[in-house]
């Protein structure tokens, strides 16, 4: 626990400043509201809110975005339970039992299980990582440029194989992201893929890519909703508000405690691995709970444990995912990639040195997550009856507002209207990619990790005097690259 004693005091001082607390509370409210909107999860919420962080100090910006992410992951469960439309992919498992509970009039109980379990998972994983993060960062210090290059490739191999309908398409997306990251000026002075256009000299801005790849496809879908699609959405939404209120008290929480603990540990462990993310965490948690449960045959009909397990795992993944992101600079999901983007925009480079140079800030992140989960519990319990009304807003009306906000958001990065145009074009491409079952998450991950991978590769090549074989021949590098190849092959064979 080296570093814990010296960092805990400053970290607490950072978190409990009035602007940080305000950022957490506002972030929670925004995150829940955005997460409720079907199609808008943590990634989209962060992409939408990214421009607002330009004027915030580093701790305020990070805590604001972390709160939005945590709250959006919970918010996605609300439409999953109420109208069988998960707001996030991770909430898909919640549909299985949450929606049947809502259908028999227990929507309020399902929502209470969701909020309680999610908060429990978030707090448990945050506590674990307050103590474990510095140890993991020490491991990260053992990695040189060759190892970091290999680790970046492993991260992309895992993401490509887990996300989307086909690993082949995932790997293509990840490599496309790597390629897009090379647009503009290279580290050694040459200009790449600019076609003599001055506004491409600085490359494609991260905010433009994030908005285009993550948020724009959903906005395109909202803008293209027909009256028939809208009528179906509204008919489903009307069923919600008439559900009867079932009690949910401390006794129920005590009964669900073993489930919440199992889900929290599974989510924490899965989150620490760069790649799988909340979705895989919730699937594993649901399956494990079914194995342990005495009511396994009733799973899928509206069982409390079947809602609690994935919800605990869902929020536990958030803290877990921050460790490889902060310690090794490897984002495990699109949302974490955005969070890393916030750090980079504040001139803070993720990696092993972040723990030694900004240890109190790193610890403040995890303490902030605990505070955020407490705020989420309060907001969730108080706000359930109000938040549900958001699903009532017709998508065809919501679409234009959000599209305008995206245009302004892309402009705000550098006061350059060309970036808004870039966002529309890349957003259209991203929409078509998703129509043809190419997930855009590997693209954004490749884009974020591209400069890190290239920089480490170039350093390793210079150190080894241009000998690429020497770069990949260190034992640790070969082991990591071997894992990446095995992951890719296993994923390809699984897809056949």
């Amino acid at each position: 626990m080296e570093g814990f004693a010296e960092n805990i005091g400053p970290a607490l001082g950072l978190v409990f400043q009035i602007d940080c607390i305000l950022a957490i509370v506002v972030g929670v409210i925004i995150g829940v509201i955005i997460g409720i909107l079907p199609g808008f999860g943590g990634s989209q919420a962060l992409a939408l809110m990214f421009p607002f962080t330009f004027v915030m100090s580093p701790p305020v910006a990070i805590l604001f975005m972390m709160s939005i992410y945590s709250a959006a992951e919970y918010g996605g469960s609300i439409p999953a339970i109420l109208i069988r439309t998960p707001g996030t992919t991770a909430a898909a498992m919640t549909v299985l039992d949450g929606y049947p509970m809502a259908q028999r009039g227990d929507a309020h109980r399902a929502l209470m299980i969701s909020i309680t379990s999610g908060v429990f998972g978030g707090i448990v994983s945050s506590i674990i990582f307050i103590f474990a993060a510095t140890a993991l960062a020490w491991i990260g210090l053992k990695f040189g440029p060759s190892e970091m290059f290999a680790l970046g490739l492993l991260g992309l191999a895992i993401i490509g194989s887990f996300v989307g309908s086909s690993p082949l398409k995932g790997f293509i997306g990840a490599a496309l992201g790597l390629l897009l990251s090379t647009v503009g000026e290279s580290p050694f002075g040459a200009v790449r893929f600019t076609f003599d256009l001055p506004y491409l000299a600085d490359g494609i801005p991260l905010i433009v890519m994030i908005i285009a790849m993550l948020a724009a496809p959903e906005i395109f879908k909202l803008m293209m909703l027909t009256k028939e699609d809208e009528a179906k959405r509204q008919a489903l939404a009307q069923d919600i508000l008439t559900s009867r209120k079932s009690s949910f008290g401390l006794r129920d929480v005590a009964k669900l405690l073993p489930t919440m603990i199992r889900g929290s540990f599974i989510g924490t462990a899965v989150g620490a691995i760069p790649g799988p993310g909340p979705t895989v965490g919730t699937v594993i948690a649901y399956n494990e709970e079914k194995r342990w449960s005495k009511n396994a045959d009733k799973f899928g009909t509206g069982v409390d444990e079947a809602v609690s397990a994935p919800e605990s795992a869902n929020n536990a993944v958030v803290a877990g995912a921050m460790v490889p992101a902060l310690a090794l600079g490897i984002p495990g999901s699109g949302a974490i990639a955005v969070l890393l983007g916030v750090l980079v925009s504040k001139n803070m480079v993720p990696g092993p040195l972040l723990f030694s140079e900004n240890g109190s800030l790193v610890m403040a992140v995890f303490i902030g997550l605990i505070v955020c989960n407490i705020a989420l519990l309060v907001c969730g319990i108080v706000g359930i009856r109000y938040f549900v009304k958001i699903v009532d807003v017709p998508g065809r009306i919501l679409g234009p507002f959000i599209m305008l906000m995206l245009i302004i958001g892309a402009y705000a990065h550098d006061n350059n209207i060309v970036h808004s145009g870039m966002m529309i074009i890349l957003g259209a491409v991203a929409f078509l990619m998703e129509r043809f079952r190419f997930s855009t998450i590997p693209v954004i991950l490749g884009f974020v990790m591209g400069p890190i991978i290239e920089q480490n590769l170039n350093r390793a090549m210079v150190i080894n005097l241009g000998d690429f074989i020497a770069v990949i021949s260190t034992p640790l590098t070969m082991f990591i690259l071997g894992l990446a190849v095995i992951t890719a092959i296993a994923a390809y064979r699984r897809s056949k």
Partner: protein
Amino acid sequence: MMNNLLISLRKADIVSGVVLLAFCAAAYYLTLSWLPPVMPGDPGAAFFPRISLIVIAIFSALLLFKSVTARGAAENDSVEDKLAGSTFLNLSGFAMTVLYGGITVIAMAVIAFEIPAFLFLFAMLGMRTKRWVWSLVTALATVAIMYVVFVLMLKVRLPLLFLPQYVSF
């Protein structure tokens, strides 16, 4: 204009594979004109993009091979099976969305933020709800809120035609 297109995913994958391979070939050709490395050991500006292009080309070729050798939809397949192997694309809706967004961006570049933003919202809301007075008021209010939040509170230098960039009290 074509509306909802039902596109076979197998055919879409074949086209995607061919387009990606052609893209990789063209992009690789572009890298041939870049400056060679100058420092000892430096792999040069083209090294990493070429690796990315080779990876895309390999996986695109695999995708193409997998799609070409896969079984296409047969006449006696059920409707559910045919739909599962297809995707819908509302071509006119997609084109109009890109057009509306593009026109708004170009208009903002030419005549600043206020009028294009208002017209975009007014037109979109009016066409969707047919409540023109409500759309007018909502569009005006939204532009005002965005001005306050982005320009006054967040100090974003939006191009403005008649609203002030700063307000002091």
